[in-house]
């Protein structure tokens, strides 16, 4: 993917650039808001990362200008100010996701992949039958089958599996799952996600030989 990063902190910018490059993305890293806006107008990016406070033009203004110019590139906001006001303002201006500093790189990578995938999904036809190897999920009838056997899932388990099936091969972090399934943006100290994941795995993986959901240490879970 081609990614634009607007970040005025050298060390952090370099870190993001090298990390995303290592993950196989093409990264343009700029330190000035005006340059970044110009870049979004001339180049086609799949994901844009904007820091909230930057010289020249701040991230929020860049985002607003982009949306005014009908640029619908997914935008991920990075900010040091983790306040509700800030988040709401960003999301209302048309940001697609929001990440507060400091963050784990795996978290950033997972969110960037999700945004890139969302972009391509916008153009794709909505699938009603999701498949991963011998696991099938029927969105319309809300039924799950593995090796022809029917598996009973409750609402949240269905939502969880739905996310994994649509994002096969992409890491889902705990924070992302909390946001998507439970719409919560705080970090519960106990193992909420672990518990629900282990219940889901007990249903779709445990009775079978091959485990489909894997734990990625220090990052999250992935279905492959």
């Amino acid at each position: 993917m081609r990614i634009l990063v607007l970040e005025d902190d050298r060390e952090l910018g370099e870190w993001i650039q090298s990390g995303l490059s290592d993950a196989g993305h093409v990264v343009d890293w700029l330190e000035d808001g005006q340059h970044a806006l110009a870049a979004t107008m001339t180049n086609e990016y799949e994901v844009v990362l904007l820091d909230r406070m930057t010289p020249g033009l701040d991230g929020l203004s860049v985002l607003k200008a982009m949306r005014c110019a009908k640029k619908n590139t997914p935008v991920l906001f990075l900010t040091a100010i983790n306040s509700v006001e800030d988040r709401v303002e960003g999301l209302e201006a048309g940001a697609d996701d929001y990440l507060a500093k400091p963050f784990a790189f795996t978290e950033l990578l997972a969110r960037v992949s999700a945004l890139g995938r969302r972009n391509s999904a916008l153009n794709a036809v909505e699938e009603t039958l999701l498949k991963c190897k011998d696991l099938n999920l029927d969105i319309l009838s809300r039924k799950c089958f593995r090796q022809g056997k029917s598996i009973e899932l409750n609402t949240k388990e269905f939502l969880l599996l739905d996310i994994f099936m649509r994002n096969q091969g992409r890491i889902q972090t705990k924070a992302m799952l909390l946001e998507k399934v439970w719409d919560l943006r705080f970090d519960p100290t106990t193992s909420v996600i672990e518990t629900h994941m282990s219940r889901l795995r007990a249903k779709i993986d445990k009775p079978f030989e091959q485990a489909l959901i894997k734990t990625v240490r220090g990052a999250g879970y992935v279905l492959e």
Partner: protein
Amino acid sequence: MFWNKLLNWRVLWLDLKRMTALRQAVFLAFSFVILLFAGGAVSTWLIEREIEQNIDQQLLSMHSQLSQQLMQSENVNTILPKSPVLFASYRDKAGLIYGVKSKKLFNKQGFINIDIEMLDNYADDWRIYAAKASTGILTVAINLEDRYQILVITGQSYLAVSIVVSVMTLIVGLAMGLVNQRRYNKISQVLETIAAGDLSARIAPQKQQDDLDLVATRIDATTHRLEVLMRQMKDLSANIAHDLRTPMARLRAKIETALFDIEQQTSAKSVAQVQAQHADTLETALTKIDEMMNTFTAILRISNLSSGEFKGHFVTLSLANIVNETAEIYAAVIEDSGRLFSCNVMADSTIQGSRELIIQLLANLIENSIRHTPKGSHIYLNCDKNLLQLVDDGDGISEAYHQRVLEPMYRLETSRQSAGNGLGLALVNSICRLHDAHLSLSKSSNQDSIAVPIKDLCNGLTVTISFEVP
């Protein structure tokens, strides 16, 4: 002793000069006396005028009476009266004067005050009335001694009253001023102590009767709040020091050791072994950093909550929905932790609030319960109208600490070793405050439980949150 007293008097005098209350009392007393004197003067004048009018009336009637008698009688001398208080004189057309023979009496017609010596023991001031009568001029006179007497008595009584009143006013004013001054002094003294850094100083008014007591009570309440906040700040900094320095020190040690190992890489270990060891070290380091970050996030969150920023995002919520949602998230977590869970929703109520914050509040309470109850304990989440309640039948907290545990980073010594940053309940408290909800901690018992019967002889903790019904 004497000097002390004198010094005290000097201080007292300085106080007197400064005392607003006393100044007002003295000013009032003086104004009062001036008014009293003005009143005295006016009333004396009025009385004098009244007496004068009275005398004039008497003179007129005496004159007309005598005029008639003069017309009828031949012997003028027998008609004209003469006493120490009144007399009459008549001057006929020939110029002969009968009665008191003084020319002054006939100088002018009408009412005049004149000076004639008549008797030793009476004043010489007379008021006379001279007018035509019969063929001559008749002058009647009344002595003014009585009038003076009345005026003098009036004046004296006014003076006496003035002195008594001004002395009384001064004494009362002084007394009241002194009493109030003592109270002012107490307030200013306490404020001085507070300003000097001792937040435990209190004015503690004896009674609750006037504005000054009210002000004192308010100052005390403010100081109390300040004291609590200051203590929390102190606890916070002490605990930040403890809770962040300790992991930081460990982290530093770990990294240092790892660095040392790289420098001194011994041939005894294989590269793979060393790498695995370093990976392990780095992972522990990351976990430690995340822990510290979480503590900071929680502190920031609490200060965000205190700023009231969230209130702009409040919406109408159903408490029952939130409770059910929380139960759905946590039922599995609680059961997997080896504890029992039940959720009881008796009746619903709608409130203004933030869904995420209330879920976080319940999540913190549940996580606390899981952390501090033994396995096999029962955790209940209840909702009845505007009441939310989390009950457990664990070991509970001693009632003496029920208030303290709500303060940021306050941790019972027993829980210091366990996980958690000591901010959970403080966050709960902040969220309650933001929602104007009342938070109370109590020992689990059937009386307080809004939904379920609790087993007897249980020490567990019950947290009740009562929201205001709109």
